[in-house]
Protein backbone atom coordinates (compact mmCIF):
# COMPACT_ATOMS: atom_id res chain seq x y z
CA UNK A 1 0.00 0.00 0.00
CA UNK A 2 1.35 3.35 -1.01
CA UNK A 3 -0.06 5.16 2.05
CA UNK A 4 2.17 3.22 4.48
CA UNK A 5 5.55 4.66 5.36
CA UNK A 6 8.43 3.40 7.51
CA UNK A 7 11.09 4.70 9.89
CA UNK A 8 14.68 3.63 10.50
CA UNK A 9 13.47 2.53 13.95
CA UNK A 10 11.38 -0.17 12.25
CA UNK A 11 7.99 1.42 12.73
CA UNK A 12 5.26 1.64 10.13
CA UNK A 13 2.96 4.64 9.82
CA UNK A 14 -0.35 4.62 7.90
CA UNK A 15 -2.02 7.94 7.20
CA UNK A 16 -5.76 8.54 6.90
CA UNK A 17 -6.53 12.25 6.80
CA UNK A 18 -4.53 13.74 9.69
CA UNK A 19 -4.58 10.52 11.73
CA UNK A 20 -1.50 8.30 11.55
CA UNK A 21 -1.67 4.71 12.81
CA UNK A 22 1.69 3.49 14.14
CA UNK A 23 3.03 -0.01 14.71
CA UNK A 24 6.25 -2.00 14.48
CA UNK A 25 7.23 -3.74 11.28
CA UNK A 26 7.17 -7.43 10.68
CA UNK A 27 10.96 -7.31 10.57
CA UNK A 28 10.98 -5.77 14.04
CA UNK A 29 8.65 -8.35 15.59
CA UNK A 30 10.75 -11.13 14.07
CA UNK A 31 13.92 -9.63 15.48
CA UNK A 32 12.35 -9.22 18.92
CA UNK A 33 10.92 -12.72 19.14
CA UNK A 34 8.04 -13.62 21.47
CA UNK A 35 6.56 -10.36 22.74
CA UNK A 36 5.32 -10.60 26.32
CA UNK A 37 4.64 -7.02 27.37
CA UNK A 38 3.57 -3.75 25.78
CA UNK A 39 3.26 -0.34 27.41
CA UNK A 40 1.46 2.35 25.43
CA UNK A 41 1.39 6.15 25.79
CA UNK A 42 -1.43 7.98 27.58
CA UNK A 43 -4.25 9.23 25.40
CA UNK A 44 -3.92 12.98 24.65
CA UNK A 45 -0.18 12.88 25.30
CA UNK A 46 1.65 15.24 22.99
CA UNK A 47 4.61 13.57 21.32
CA UNK A 48 7.62 15.10 19.62
CA UNK A 49 9.19 13.22 16.73
CA UNK A 50 11.75 10.63 17.95
CA UNK A 51 10.46 10.82 21.52
CA UNK A 52 10.36 7.48 23.36
CA UNK A 53 6.67 6.86 23.98
CA UNK A 54 6.02 3.12 24.27
CA UNK A 55 7.81 -0.03 25.36
CA UNK A 56 7.78 -3.51 23.94
CA UNK A 57 9.38 -6.43 25.74
CA UNK A 58 10.21 -9.87 24.46
CA UNK A 59 11.19 -12.80 26.67
CA UNK A 60 14.75 -11.65 26.22
CA UNK A 61 14.83 -7.86 26.12
CA UNK A 62 13.05 -4.52 26.38
CA UNK A 63 12.92 -2.01 23.53
CA UNK A 64 11.66 1.56 23.26
CA UNK A 65 9.22 2.67 20.60
CA UNK A 66 9.69 6.22 19.33
CA UNK A 67 7.15 8.64 17.95
CA UNK A 68 7.70 8.54 14.17
CA UNK A 69 6.32 12.06 13.81
CA UNK A 70 5.10 14.83 16.11
CA UNK A 71 1.47 14.74 17.16
CA UNK A 72 -1.11 13.96 19.83
CA UNK A 73 -2.07 10.42 20.87
CA UNK A 74 -5.74 9.92 19.98
CA UNK A 75 -6.16 6.19 20.51
CA UNK A 76 -4.14 3.21 21.75
CA UNK A 77 -4.57 -0.49 20.97
CA UNK A 78 -5.60 -2.12 24.25
CA UNK A 79 -5.74 -5.50 22.52
CA UNK A 80 -1.94 -5.76 22.36
CA UNK A 81 -1.65 -4.89 26.06
CA UNK A 82 -4.07 -7.72 26.84
CA UNK A 83 -2.45 -10.08 24.34
CA UNK A 84 1.12 -9.01 23.45
CA UNK A 85 1.56 -12.01 21.12
CA UNK A 86 -0.86 -10.26 18.74
CA UNK A 87 2.07 -8.03 17.76
CA UNK A 88 3.98 -11.14 16.63
CA UNK A 89 1.03 -12.45 14.67
CA UNK A 90 -0.25 -9.23 13.11
CA UNK A 91 2.54 -6.68 13.40
CA UNK A 92 1.44 -4.61 10.43
CA UNK A 93 -2.31 -5.02 10.98
CA UNK A 94 -4.30 -5.71 14.17
CA UNK A 95 -1.09 -5.43 16.20
CA UNK A 96 -0.92 -1.61 15.74
CA UNK A 97 0.24 0.46 18.74
CA UNK A 98 -1.35 3.90 18.71
CA UNK A 99 -2.94 6.59 16.54
CA UNK A 100 -1.54 10.08 16.33
CA UNK A 101 -3.14 13.26 15.14
CA UNK A 102 -0.15 14.69 13.30
CA UNK A 103 1.02 18.23 14.04
CA UNK A 104 1.96 18.57 10.39
CA UNK A 105 0.65 15.86 8.04
CA UNK A 106 3.13 17.05 5.41
CA UNK A 107 5.94 15.44 7.47
CA UNK A 108 4.51 12.04 6.53
CA UNK A 109 5.96 12.26 3.02
CA UNK A 110 9.48 12.49 4.44
CA UNK A 111 9.29 8.96 5.85
CA UNK A 112 10.55 5.99 3.80
CA UNK A 113 8.17 4.30 1.40
CA UNK A 114 8.04 0.51 1.16
CA UNK A 115 10.85 0.26 -1.40
CA UNK A 116 13.09 2.60 0.57
CA UNK A 117 12.48 0.61 3.76
CA UNK A 118 13.24 -2.65 1.96
CA UNK A 119 16.49 -1.11 0.73
CA UNK A 120 17.22 0.16 4.25
CA UNK A 121 16.79 -3.37 5.66
CA UNK A 122 19.37 -4.59 3.14
CA UNK A 123 21.92 -2.14 4.55
CA UNK A 124 21.31 -3.04 8.21
Amino acid at each position, binding site marked *: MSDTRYTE*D*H*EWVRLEGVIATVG*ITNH*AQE*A*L*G*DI*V*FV*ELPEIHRELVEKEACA*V*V*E*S*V*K*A*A*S*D*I*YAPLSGVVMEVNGAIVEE*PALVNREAEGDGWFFKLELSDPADFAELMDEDAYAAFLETE
Partner: protein
Amino acid sequence: MTIVIATDEPPAPLHHVPLDALHRALGARMVPFAGFDMPVQYPAGIMTEHLHCRQKAALFDVSHMGQVILSGPPGAAAAALEKLVPGELLALKPGRQRYTLLMNEAGGILDDLMVANFDQAGERLFLVLNASRKEADIKHIKKNLPNNVALETLDDRVLLALQGPAAVAVLGRYAPEVAALPFMGVLSVEISGAKCLVTRSGYTGEDGFEISLPAAGAEAFARQLLAEPEVAPAGLGARDSLRLEAGLCLYGNDIDELTSPVEAGLVWVIGKRRRMAWDFPGAAVVRDQLDNGPTRLRVGLRPEGRAPARPGVSIVAENDDLAGDVTSGGFSPSLGAPIAMGYVKRPFAADGTLLSLLIRGKKLPAKVVPLPFVPHSFIH
Protein backbone atom coordinates in the same frame (compact mmCIF):
# COMPACT_ATOMS: atom_id res chain seq x y z
CA MET B 1 12.44 1.40 18.05
CA THR B 2 15.82 0.10 19.05
CA ILE B 3 16.17 -3.63 18.89
CA VAL B 4 18.50 -4.77 21.61
CA ILE B 5 19.12 -8.48 21.63
CA ALA B 6 22.78 -8.95 22.42
CA THR B 7 24.06 -7.18 25.50
CA ASP B 8 27.70 -8.11 25.74
CA GLU B 9 29.21 -7.69 22.30
CA PRO B 10 32.94 -8.18 22.73
CA PRO B 11 35.56 -6.32 20.73
CA ALA B 12 37.50 -9.51 19.91
CA PRO B 13 36.55 -11.75 16.98
CA LEU B 14 33.95 -14.31 17.95
CA HIS B 15 34.77 -17.95 18.45
CA HIS B 16 32.63 -20.46 16.62
CA VAL B 17 31.46 -23.64 18.30
CA PRO B 18 32.04 -26.92 16.40
CA LEU B 19 28.27 -27.17 15.69
CA ASP B 20 28.08 -23.66 14.20
CA ALA B 21 27.02 -24.97 10.77
CA LEU B 22 24.30 -27.12 12.31
CA HIS B 23 22.82 -24.14 14.19
CA ARG B 24 22.74 -22.08 11.01
CA ALA B 25 21.20 -24.98 9.08
CA LEU B 26 18.50 -25.19 11.75
CA GLY B 27 17.77 -21.49 11.24
CA ALA B 28 19.18 -20.28 14.56
CA ARG B 29 19.59 -16.61 15.32
CA MET B 30 23.22 -16.30 16.36
CA VAL B 31 24.31 -13.69 18.92
CA PRO B 32 27.60 -12.91 20.65
CA PHE B 33 27.76 -14.43 24.11
CA ALA B 34 30.92 -14.57 26.24
CA GLY B 35 33.07 -14.29 23.11
CA PHE B 36 31.19 -17.00 21.19
CA ASP B 37 28.73 -16.78 18.35
CA MET B 38 25.88 -18.74 19.94
CA PRO B 39 22.30 -19.68 19.01
CA VAL B 40 19.95 -17.56 21.14
CA GLN B 41 16.89 -19.12 19.52
CA TYR B 42 15.73 -21.24 16.60
CA PRO B 43 12.72 -20.44 14.37
CA ALA B 44 10.26 -21.88 16.95
CA GLY B 45 11.17 -19.04 19.34
CA ILE B 46 12.16 -18.88 23.01
CA MET B 47 8.65 -19.43 24.38
CA THR B 48 8.01 -22.60 22.37
CA GLU B 49 11.52 -23.95 22.98
CA HIS B 50 11.14 -23.33 26.70
CA LEU B 51 7.77 -25.08 26.95
CA HIS B 52 8.99 -27.95 24.80
CA CYS B 53 11.80 -28.54 27.29
CA ARG B 54 9.32 -28.61 30.17
CA GLN B 55 7.00 -31.01 28.29
CA LYS B 56 9.29 -33.24 26.22
CA ALA B 57 13.01 -32.75 25.60
CA ALA B 58 15.21 -29.94 24.32
CA LEU B 59 18.73 -30.16 22.96
CA PHE B 60 21.08 -27.29 23.80
CA ASP B 61 24.62 -26.76 22.54
CA VAL B 62 26.64 -25.39 25.44
CA SER B 63 30.05 -25.97 23.91
CA HIS B 64 31.08 -22.43 24.83
CA MET B 65 31.49 -23.63 28.39
CA GLY B 66 34.92 -24.64 29.60
CA GLN B 67 35.65 -28.36 29.83
CA VAL B 68 38.70 -29.25 31.87
CA ILE B 69 40.31 -32.42 33.21
CA LEU B 70 42.42 -32.37 36.35
CA SER B 71 44.61 -35.45 36.74
CA GLY B 72 47.18 -36.77 39.15
CA PRO B 73 47.82 -39.60 41.62
CA PRO B 74 44.66 -40.98 43.29
CA GLY B 75 42.93 -38.21 45.28
CA ALA B 76 45.50 -35.56 44.37
CA ALA B 77 43.27 -33.60 41.98
CA ALA B 78 40.40 -33.57 44.49
CA ALA B 79 42.73 -32.46 47.29
CA ALA B 80 44.16 -29.67 45.16
CA LEU B 81 40.79 -28.35 43.96
CA GLU B 82 39.34 -28.58 47.48
CA LYS B 83 41.71 -25.82 48.53
CA LEU B 84 39.87 -23.43 46.17
CA VAL B 85 36.24 -24.38 46.89
CA PRO B 86 34.01 -24.93 49.94
CA GLY B 87 32.80 -28.35 48.77
CA GLU B 88 33.99 -31.74 49.99
CA LEU B 89 35.62 -33.08 46.87
CA LEU B 90 37.67 -35.74 48.66
CA ALA B 91 34.36 -37.31 49.65
CA LEU B 92 33.06 -37.19 46.07
CA LYS B 93 32.58 -40.85 45.13
CA PRO B 94 33.50 -42.24 41.72
CA GLY B 95 30.53 -41.85 39.40
CA ARG B 96 29.32 -38.68 41.13
CA GLN B 97 29.21 -35.01 40.22
CA ARG B 98 28.96 -31.98 42.49
CA TYR B 99 28.11 -28.29 42.12
CA THR B 100 30.66 -26.05 43.79
CA LEU B 101 32.14 -22.55 43.85
CA LEU B 102 35.57 -21.13 43.24
CA MET B 103 35.92 -18.55 46.00
CA ASN B 104 38.16 -15.63 46.84
CA GLU B 105 39.52 -14.67 50.28
CA ALA B 106 36.83 -12.00 50.68
CA GLY B 107 34.12 -14.68 50.56
CA GLY B 108 33.17 -13.73 47.01
CA ILE B 109 32.45 -16.16 44.20
CA LEU B 110 34.95 -16.38 41.31
CA ASP B 111 32.78 -18.87 39.42
CA ASP B 112 30.29 -21.67 39.94
CA LEU B 113 31.20 -24.99 38.39
CA MET B 114 30.43 -28.69 38.11
CA VAL B 115 33.01 -31.23 39.22
CA ALA B 116 32.61 -34.89 38.25
CA ASN B 117 34.62 -37.81 39.58
CA PHE B 118 34.32 -39.99 36.49
CA ASP B 119 37.34 -42.14 37.15
CA GLN B 120 37.15 -45.27 39.32
CA ALA B 121 40.80 -44.80 40.31
CA GLY B 122 40.15 -41.26 41.58
CA GLU B 123 42.89 -39.94 39.33
CA ARG B 124 40.83 -37.58 37.18
CA LEU B 125 38.14 -34.96 37.69
CA PHE B 126 36.01 -33.42 34.92
CA LEU B 127 35.16 -29.73 35.41
CA VAL B 128 32.60 -27.62 33.56
CA LEU B 129 33.24 -23.87 33.83
CA ASN B 130 31.25 -20.84 32.75
CA ALA B 131 32.23 -19.56 29.31
CA SER B 132 32.73 -16.01 30.54
CA ARG B 133 35.01 -17.17 33.37
CA LYS B 134 36.91 -20.11 31.95
CA GLU B 135 40.13 -18.32 31.11
CA ALA B 136 40.31 -16.68 34.53
CA ASP B 137 39.33 -19.95 36.24
CA ILE B 138 41.98 -21.98 34.44
CA LYS B 139 44.66 -19.44 35.33
CA HIS B 140 43.50 -19.41 38.95
CA ILE B 141 43.35 -23.20 39.24
CA LYS B 142 46.70 -23.74 37.49
CA LYS B 143 48.41 -21.24 39.78
CA ASN B 144 47.23 -23.25 42.77
CA LEU B 145 47.96 -26.77 41.57
CA PRO B 146 50.77 -28.84 43.08
CA ASN B 147 53.35 -30.25 40.65
CA ASN B 148 51.73 -33.69 40.61
CA VAL B 149 48.35 -32.45 39.31
CA ALA B 150 47.91 -31.47 35.66
CA LEU B 151 45.17 -29.38 34.06
CA GLU B 152 44.08 -30.17 30.53
CA THR B 153 41.52 -28.08 28.64
CA LEU B 154 39.29 -30.06 26.29
CA ASP B 155 39.08 -27.59 23.43
CA ASP B 156 38.08 -30.07 20.74
CA ARG B 157 34.98 -31.32 22.48
CA VAL B 158 31.32 -30.43 22.25
CA LEU B 159 29.00 -30.17 25.25
CA LEU B 160 25.34 -30.93 24.63
CA ALA B 161 22.53 -30.68 27.16
CA LEU B 162 19.50 -32.91 26.59
CA GLN B 163 16.90 -31.70 29.08
CA GLY B 164 13.30 -32.51 29.81
CA PRO B 165 11.05 -35.33 31.03
CA ALA B 166 11.63 -37.34 27.83
CA ALA B 167 15.44 -36.97 27.92
CA VAL B 168 15.99 -40.31 29.64
CA ALA B 169 13.80 -42.22 27.19
CA VAL B 170 15.57 -40.59 24.23
CA LEU B 171 19.17 -41.08 25.38
CA GLY B 172 18.27 -44.53 26.73
CA ARG B 173 17.55 -45.67 23.17
CA TYR B 174 21.23 -45.20 22.38
CA ALA B 175 22.73 -46.08 25.75
CA PRO B 176 20.42 -48.00 28.11
CA GLU B 177 23.00 -47.54 30.92
CA VAL B 178 22.14 -43.85 31.28
CA ALA B 179 18.70 -44.66 32.65
CA ALA B 180 20.34 -46.08 35.76
CA LEU B 181 22.38 -42.93 36.40
CA PRO B 182 21.28 -41.13 39.58
CA PHE B 183 20.79 -37.36 39.71
CA MET B 184 24.31 -35.86 39.63
CA GLY B 185 25.79 -39.14 38.44
CA VAL B 186 28.51 -39.38 35.78
CA LEU B 187 29.30 -42.16 33.33
CA SER B 188 31.88 -42.75 30.59
CA VAL B 189 30.00 -44.47 27.82
CA GLU B 190 30.28 -45.00 24.08
CA ILE B 191 27.16 -43.75 22.29
CA SER B 192 26.81 -44.22 18.53
CA GLY B 193 30.56 -44.67 18.30
CA ALA B 194 31.37 -41.47 20.23
CA LYS B 195 33.28 -41.66 23.50
CA CYS B 196 30.96 -39.65 25.75
CA LEU B 197 31.10 -38.42 29.28
CA VAL B 198 27.48 -38.23 30.41
CA THR B 199 26.24 -36.55 33.58
CA ARG B 200 22.66 -36.57 34.84
CA SER B 201 22.42 -32.87 35.50
CA GLY B 202 21.60 -29.61 33.80
CA TYR B 203 20.54 -26.02 34.15
CA THR B 204 16.80 -26.17 33.52
CA GLY B 205 15.27 -27.76 36.62
CA GLU B 206 14.28 -30.77 34.50
CA ASP B 207 15.64 -34.28 34.49
CA GLY B 208 18.25 -34.61 31.78
CA PHE B 209 21.83 -35.07 30.75
CA GLU B 210 24.89 -33.15 29.75
CA ILE B 211 26.95 -35.00 27.20
CA SER B 212 30.60 -34.22 26.50
CA LEU B 213 31.85 -35.75 23.26
CA PRO B 214 34.61 -35.25 20.66
CA ALA B 215 33.90 -32.46 18.17
CA ALA B 216 34.59 -34.85 15.29
CA GLY B 217 31.31 -36.61 14.64
CA ALA B 218 29.35 -34.40 17.03
CA GLU B 219 27.11 -32.98 14.31
CA ALA B 220 25.89 -36.44 13.27
CA PHE B 221 25.39 -37.25 16.95
CA ALA B 222 23.33 -34.10 17.52
CA ARG B 223 21.30 -34.65 14.34
CA GLN B 224 20.50 -38.17 15.51
CA LEU B 225 19.08 -36.84 18.78
CA LEU B 226 17.21 -34.05 16.98
CA ALA B 227 15.60 -36.66 14.73
CA GLU B 228 13.98 -38.29 17.77
CA PRO B 229 10.29 -37.32 17.87
CA GLU B 230 10.45 -35.83 21.40
CA VAL B 231 13.49 -33.61 20.77
CA ALA B 232 13.62 -30.01 19.55
CA PRO B 233 16.60 -27.65 19.52
CA ALA B 234 16.64 -24.85 22.09
CA GLY B 235 18.92 -21.84 22.34
CA LEU B 236 20.47 -19.75 25.06
CA GLY B 237 17.30 -17.66 25.38
CA ALA B 238 15.26 -20.64 26.55
CA ARG B 239 18.18 -21.85 28.66
CA ASP B 240 18.09 -18.54 30.52
CA SER B 241 14.31 -18.49 31.07
CA LEU B 242 14.38 -22.14 32.17
CA ARG B 243 17.14 -21.62 34.72
CA LEU B 244 15.41 -18.50 36.04
CA GLU B 245 12.17 -20.44 36.62
CA ALA B 246 14.30 -23.09 38.35
CA GLY B 247 15.79 -20.38 40.62
CA LEU B 248 19.33 -21.19 39.48
CA CYS B 249 22.03 -18.53 39.60
CA LEU B 250 23.61 -17.03 36.50
CA TYR B 251 27.23 -16.11 37.12
CA GLY B 252 27.80 -12.41 36.50
CA ASN B 253 24.15 -11.61 37.28
CA ASP B 254 23.12 -13.39 40.48
CA ILE B 255 26.53 -14.28 41.84
CA ASP B 256 29.93 -12.67 41.39
CA GLU B 257 33.08 -11.71 43.28
CA LEU B 258 31.03 -9.41 45.52
CA THR B 259 28.38 -11.95 46.55
CA SER B 260 28.99 -14.65 49.14
CA PRO B 261 27.47 -18.15 49.20
CA VAL B 262 25.53 -17.10 52.32
CA GLU B 263 23.97 -14.08 50.63
CA ALA B 264 23.27 -16.15 47.51
CA GLY B 265 21.49 -18.89 49.47
CA LEU B 266 24.15 -21.41 48.46
CA VAL B 267 25.21 -22.46 51.96
CA TRP B 268 24.36 -26.06 51.01
CA VAL B 269 27.46 -26.19 48.81
CA ILE B 270 29.65 -25.89 51.91
CA GLY B 271 30.67 -29.38 53.03
CA LYS B 272 30.17 -30.42 56.65
CA ARG B 273 33.87 -31.07 57.17
CA ARG B 274 34.70 -27.70 55.58
CA ARG B 275 32.30 -26.00 58.00
CA MET B 276 34.20 -27.47 60.90
CA ALA B 277 37.67 -26.81 59.55
CA TRP B 278 36.82 -23.39 57.99
CA ASP B 279 39.70 -24.06 55.62
CA PHE B 280 38.33 -22.77 52.30
CA PRO B 281 38.97 -19.35 50.73
CA GLY B 282 36.76 -16.72 52.33
CA ALA B 283 35.83 -19.03 55.22
CA ALA B 284 36.19 -16.26 57.81
CA VAL B 285 33.70 -14.02 55.98
CA VAL B 286 31.28 -16.91 55.46
CA ARG B 287 31.54 -17.91 59.11
CA ASP B 288 30.83 -14.37 60.26
CA GLN B 289 27.81 -14.13 57.96
CA LEU B 290 26.48 -17.47 59.22
CA ASP B 291 26.93 -16.40 62.84
CA ASN B 292 25.58 -12.86 62.52
CA GLY B 293 23.41 -13.08 59.43
CA PRO B 294 24.29 -11.55 56.07
CA THR B 295 23.23 -7.98 55.35
CA ARG B 296 21.38 -9.08 52.21
CA LEU B 297 19.93 -12.22 50.69
CA ARG B 298 19.00 -13.52 47.26
CA VAL B 299 15.23 -13.83 46.89
CA GLY B 300 12.61 -14.65 44.29
CA LEU B 301 10.20 -11.87 43.27
CA ARG B 302 6.80 -12.02 41.61
CA PRO B 303 5.93 -8.63 40.11
CA GLU B 304 2.23 -7.81 39.96
CA GLY B 305 0.97 -7.11 36.46
CA ARG B 306 2.84 -7.99 33.32
CA ALA B 307 5.89 -5.72 33.16
CA PRO B 308 9.10 -7.77 33.36
CA ALA B 309 11.72 -6.48 35.81
CA ARG B 310 15.15 -6.63 34.20
CA PRO B 311 18.55 -6.82 35.93
CA GLY B 312 19.44 -3.49 37.52
CA VAL B 313 15.88 -2.54 38.48
CA SER B 314 15.78 -1.05 41.99
CA ILE B 315 13.71 -2.75 44.67
CA VAL B 316 12.19 -0.36 47.23
CA ALA B 317 10.42 -0.83 50.56
CA GLU B 318 7.03 0.65 51.47
CA ASN B 319 8.66 3.81 52.86
CA ASP B 320 10.59 4.19 49.56
CA ASP B 321 13.92 3.15 51.13
CA LEU B 322 16.12 1.20 48.74
CA ALA B 323 15.80 -2.49 49.61
CA GLY B 324 17.95 -3.96 46.86
CA ASP B 325 18.32 -4.68 43.15
CA VAL B 326 17.05 -7.17 40.62
CA THR B 327 19.86 -9.40 39.27
CA SER B 328 17.88 -11.61 36.87
CA GLY B 329 14.41 -11.06 35.56
CA GLY B 330 12.15 -11.70 32.67
CA PHE B 331 9.03 -13.48 31.64
CA SER B 332 8.20 -17.00 32.78
CA PRO B 333 6.72 -18.97 29.88
CA SER B 334 5.49 -21.66 32.30
CA LEU B 335 3.68 -19.21 34.58
CA GLY B 336 2.72 -16.71 31.89
CA ALA B 337 3.90 -13.92 34.16
CA PRO B 338 7.04 -11.97 34.98
CA ILE B 339 9.50 -13.41 37.50
CA ALA B 340 12.74 -12.04 38.94
CA MET B 341 15.54 -12.73 41.36
CA GLY B 342 17.50 -10.15 43.24
CA TYR B 343 19.21 -9.22 46.47
CA VAL B 344 17.35 -7.44 49.26
CA LYS B 345 18.42 -6.31 52.71
CA ARG B 346 17.77 -9.09 55.21
CA PRO B 347 14.69 -7.51 56.88
CA PHE B 348 12.92 -7.64 53.50
CA ALA B 349 13.90 -11.19 52.56
CA ALA B 350 11.04 -13.10 54.22
CA ASP B 351 8.60 -14.86 51.89
CA GLY B 352 5.47 -12.78 51.40
CA THR B 353 7.17 -9.40 51.98
CA LEU B 354 5.57 -6.74 49.82
CA LEU B 355 8.04 -4.53 47.98
CA SER B 356 8.03 -2.32 44.88
CA LEU B 357 10.06 -2.35 41.71
CA LEU B 358 11.09 0.91 40.06
CA ILE B 359 10.45 0.31 36.37
CA ARG B 360 10.66 3.30 34.00
CA GLY B 361 9.93 5.70 36.81
CA LYS B 362 6.90 3.81 38.09
CA LYS B 363 6.58 1.90 41.35
CA LEU B 364 5.19 -1.52 40.58
CA PRO B 365 4.27 -3.88 43.42
CA ALA B 366 6.09 -7.19 43.82
CA LYS B 367 6.13 -9.96 46.42
CA VAL B 368 9.03 -11.97 47.81
CA VAL B 369 8.40 -15.63 47.00
CA PRO B 370 10.26 -18.88 47.60
CA LEU B 371 12.56 -20.27 44.91
CA PRO B 372 12.27 -22.10 42.59
CA PHE B 373 9.35 -20.53 40.74
CA VAL B 374 8.67 -23.82 38.97
CA PRO B 375 9.33 -27.02 40.98
CA HIS B 376 12.39 -29.04 39.99
CA SER B 377 11.73 -32.37 38.30
CA PHE B 378 15.06 -34.03 39.01
CA ILE B 379 15.01 -37.77 39.52
CA HIS B 380 15.68 -39.00 43.00
